[in-house]
């Protein structure tokens, strides 16, 4: 096994990981591992932009942004973290501009901003333009910028390395083991600080906007070390997935003025959010859509609805939404300047994740005690910025703000910490054995079938609308799937680029956290944000205004614990749009 | 694979000269063509042509023609060869010297033919 040493090792090269690497790289020796080439990371798919109350196009303030974020998250977000997010969003946006991000511009030459669902001015009362964007390629531009800046800082990249285990001993993270996909060899990395920025987990659903790589790998890695996973039941379904692929049609389409119609030609949002209409938060719109579909008012009674842009005019569409136009032509053969776009809700974003403090340090008990040297940021983490439901454009901003904070915190930590303590083969033996065992599996089950059954059942039972019955069914079914997973064989005997093996590793992780999601969702007997229980349709602040912490115990069982929400500004109120 | 870390001017002036000679080639070639092939007033006679070639104007034009054609042709050849020689510095040096030598030899040959010529 090859051994490497860096002060800081970052796992994941999306916006969060790269921001951290770039910042830490200013003073520390940083290595970044990513299972795909950095510019292939999922962050590049973000289209709509990142929220910051710059006020370039009308009045805005971070207080308004904070209020929207708190309310959008149905009061489950921690308000101290949310305050940091909305305040630091402003300097971070300017920092990205200074680094060269090619923002779209206002006529005066300032950063252009557009409206987005759930964002308002004057504490929910007026409209606002808050999303700072680069046409509809915002994430793409940010991802490339941060990659290039990391290169400039001399960050060392290990591309196509799949991290398979963390080495955590006595509450200290010392390093990790990763599979070099190109050769099939295992490598050990020793570091003072390790950051997980492995992205989201929506690949566990059948209809999803997420890339193939979004298998939530970071979560099972920490769960195995006894770290709980926080608020995993909160998964956002985006209202406009292209039918039938689930590929995302950005919310910018509605931000720019798109309408939603059902099969009867009615703008059905009138019924669900009369004042905010299409620009109500995602959970609200997705539930409205699912209700229309379930009640037979889909287009031709089918499983989709129409997103109509035609009234905006071809010029505006081609100028402001060029990528959406191209995407819809390519994947649905629809010219959206002339015809409506067929859409359906699609699994999109993971609010839950690895619990961290405000400096992105991972919390061993989910509450106070940190795992020394272990950090997490971006979509895989849960500080909790988004509570029960994330607002559009808040997540790339979270990845930037908290990736940045993590980078700074790690650089500071390694300055004060002692030397790197490299381990030897004894420390990595277990990780090695695990992978070798997987490699030589000969069982008769098919990974594809198990993955497909997982995704179908999660969509069916842990989808937009949930009930105790469905969730119980899913918890049980997870046992069956996990048993069958043990019988999956690997037909590819080669070492180099064995993607059958890497897909199997990812699937194992998905089964692990999907069970945690199901158990957490079953326990939460209320409806809040994206977690919508038909059998408990009301939000219950007395019982459930608290974060779920799900521990994977040594015997494989799941133990639930809870922690209070930080509420220091806005008291819970009814959420109406 | 060697990463391009840059090594000073690798061709701007050459490239520019290639463009300039390319453009100049056109009028010079046209003139040459008209003068030698489209003359209808007389038959090709040594005396008449020799008299023309011996004038200072035509000497100048022919030297220009020689310079432009040799540069453009040989640099064009070199440019094609360069595509294949990135990883062969020794061969590159040899071929470069060879092309320069051939070019100079032809140039001198041309000059000694044009300059002293008298009818």
């Amino acid at each position, binding site marked *: 096994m090859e051994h490497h040493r860096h002060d800081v090792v970052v796992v994941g090269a999306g916006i969060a990981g790269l921001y951290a690497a770039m910042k830490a790289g200013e003073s520390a020796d940083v290595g970044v591992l990513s299972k*795909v*080439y950095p*510019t*292939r*990371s*999922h962050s*590049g*798919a973000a289209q709509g932009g990142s929220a910051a109350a710059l006020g370039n196009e009308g009045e805005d303030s971070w207080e308004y942004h904070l209020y929207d974020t708190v309310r959008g998250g149905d009061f489950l977000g921690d308000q101290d973290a949310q305050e940091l997010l909305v305040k630091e969003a402003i300097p971070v*946006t*300017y920092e990205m*501009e*200074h*680094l*060269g991000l*090619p*923002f*779209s*511009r206002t006529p005066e*030459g*300032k*950063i252009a901003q557009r409206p987005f669902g759930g964002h308002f001015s004057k504490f929910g009362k007026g409209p606002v333009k808050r999303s700072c964007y680069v046409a509809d*390629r915002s994430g*793409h531009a940010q991802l490339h910028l941060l990659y*290039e800046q990391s*290169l*400039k800082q001399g960050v060392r990249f290990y591309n196509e390395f799949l991290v398979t285990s963390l080495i955590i001993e006595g509450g200290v993270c010392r390093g990790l083991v990763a599979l070099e996909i*190109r050769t099939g060899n295992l490598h050990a990395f020793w570091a003072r600080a390790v950051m997980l920025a492995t992205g989201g987990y929506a690949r566990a659903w059948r209809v999803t906007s997420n*890339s*193939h*790589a979004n298998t939530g790998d970071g979560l099972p890695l920490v769960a195995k070390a006894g770290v709980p996973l926080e608020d995993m039941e909160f998964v956002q379904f985006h209202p406009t997935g292209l039918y039938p*692929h689930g*590929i*995302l049609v950005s919310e910018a389409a509605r931000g720019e003025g798109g309408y939603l119609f059902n099969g009867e030609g009615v703008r059905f949002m009138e019924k669900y959010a009369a004042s905010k209409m299409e620009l109500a938060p995602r959970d609200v719109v997705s539930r409205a859509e699912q209700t229309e579909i379930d009640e037979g008012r889909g287009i031709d009674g089918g499983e989709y609805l129409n997103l109509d842009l035609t009234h905006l005019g071809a010029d505006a569409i081609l100028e402001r939404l060029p990528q959406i136009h191209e995407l819809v032509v*390519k*994947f649905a*053969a629809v010219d959206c300047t002339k015809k409506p776009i067929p859409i359906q809700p699609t699994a999109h974003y993971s609010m839950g994740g690895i619990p961290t403090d405000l400096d992105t340090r991972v919390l061993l008990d989910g509450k106070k005690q940190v795992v020394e040297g272990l950090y997490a940021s971006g979509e895989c983490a849960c500080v909790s910025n988004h509570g029960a439901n994330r607002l559009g454009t808040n997540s790339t901003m979270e990845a930037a703000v908290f990736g940045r904070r993590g980078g700074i915190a790690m650089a500071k930590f390694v300055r004060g910490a002692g030397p790197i303590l490299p381990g030897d083969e004894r420390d990595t033996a277990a990780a090695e054995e695990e992978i070798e065992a997987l490699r030589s599996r000969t069982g008769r089950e098919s990974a*594809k079938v198990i993955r497909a059954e997982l995704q179908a059942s999660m969509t069916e039972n842990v989808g937009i609308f949930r009930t105790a019955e469905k969730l119980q069914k899913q918890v049980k079914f997870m046992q069956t799937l996990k048993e069958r997973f043990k019988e999956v064989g690997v*037909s590819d005997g*080669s070492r*180099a*680029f*064995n*993607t*059958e093996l890497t897909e199997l590793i990812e699937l194992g992780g998905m089964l692990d956290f999907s069970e945690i999601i199901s158990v957490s969702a079953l326990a939460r007997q209320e409806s809040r944000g994206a977690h919508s229980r038909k059998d408990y349709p009301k939000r219950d602040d007395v019982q459930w205004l608290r974060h779920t912490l799900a521990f994977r115990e040594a015997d494989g069982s799941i133990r639930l614990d809870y922690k209070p929400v930080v509420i220091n500004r806005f008291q819970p109120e009814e959420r109406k749009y | 694979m060697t*990463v*391009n*870390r*840059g090594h*000073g*001017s*690798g*061709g*701007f002036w050459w*490239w*520019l000269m290639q463009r300039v000679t390319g453009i100049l080639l056109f009028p010079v070639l046209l003139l040459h063509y008209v003068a030698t092939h489209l003359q209808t007033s007389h038959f090709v006679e040594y005396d008449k042509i020799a008299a023309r070639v011996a004038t200072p104007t035509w000497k100048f034009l022919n030297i220009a023609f020689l310079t432009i054609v040799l540069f453009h042709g040989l640099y064009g050849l070199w*440019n094609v060869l*360069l*595509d294949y020689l*990135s*990883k062969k510095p020794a061969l590159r040096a040899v071929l470069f010297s060879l092309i320069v030598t051939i070019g100079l030899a032809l140039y001198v040959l041309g000059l000694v033919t044009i300059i002293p010529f008298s009818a």
Partner: protein
Amino acid sequence: MERQFRIYRYNPEVSPTPSFKTYTVDVQPAWTVLDALNAIKWDQDGSLTFRRSCRHGICGSCGMKINGKNGLACEIQVESLKGVITVEPLHGFRILRDLVTDMDGFFAHIEAVKPWLIAGTPPTDGERLQSPEDRKQLDGLYECILCGACTSACPSYWVNDDFLGPAALLKAARYVMDTRDEGFAERVDVLDSRNGLWRCHTIFNCVEACPKSLNPTEAIVKLRQKLTALKI
């Protein structure tokens, strides 16, 4: 509908010589070539190897040669292709396995053009101003997804992989043409090197190959114009 896919197979651990293998796939409506490759991998032959991630043409993982033309497997509808569909790895890069090529050199060239803004101290509060017209100069330059289709289509690159190639030069143009950037002089060393701008013979293959309809040749011409302005 049943369609046949003739796929380039190469696995040096098994055999030193590449070969083609044909698979029959029951293609569903609206399937892309990537959907078909996934179906082959998952249902017929787990050893088939290719890269993919976003599956909607934004991450640049799935560049390959499909019926002789470079493109993104995830963007090309099977229906749009005729006959037996031949799928090969991108030409011009070292093949690691099946449809997977070695992209390290490609990315090293991107790094070589200093793809970062080189500029003086920014304002302490707020953004630098840039007019919408100035910003427009970057359209057609910043959208590159680094899939490698252009560089892989470049005959100059085929014979000389030290040539920066169209993608890296496009990336250079993305910064050079940025009105906020002052680093052109710093990049001249690389652009005006033997394997820089001058290895482009304006063949336009890159333009034809780009799945994002970008124009690297035009970017190269712009860089040459800039260089001329600087030197003269």
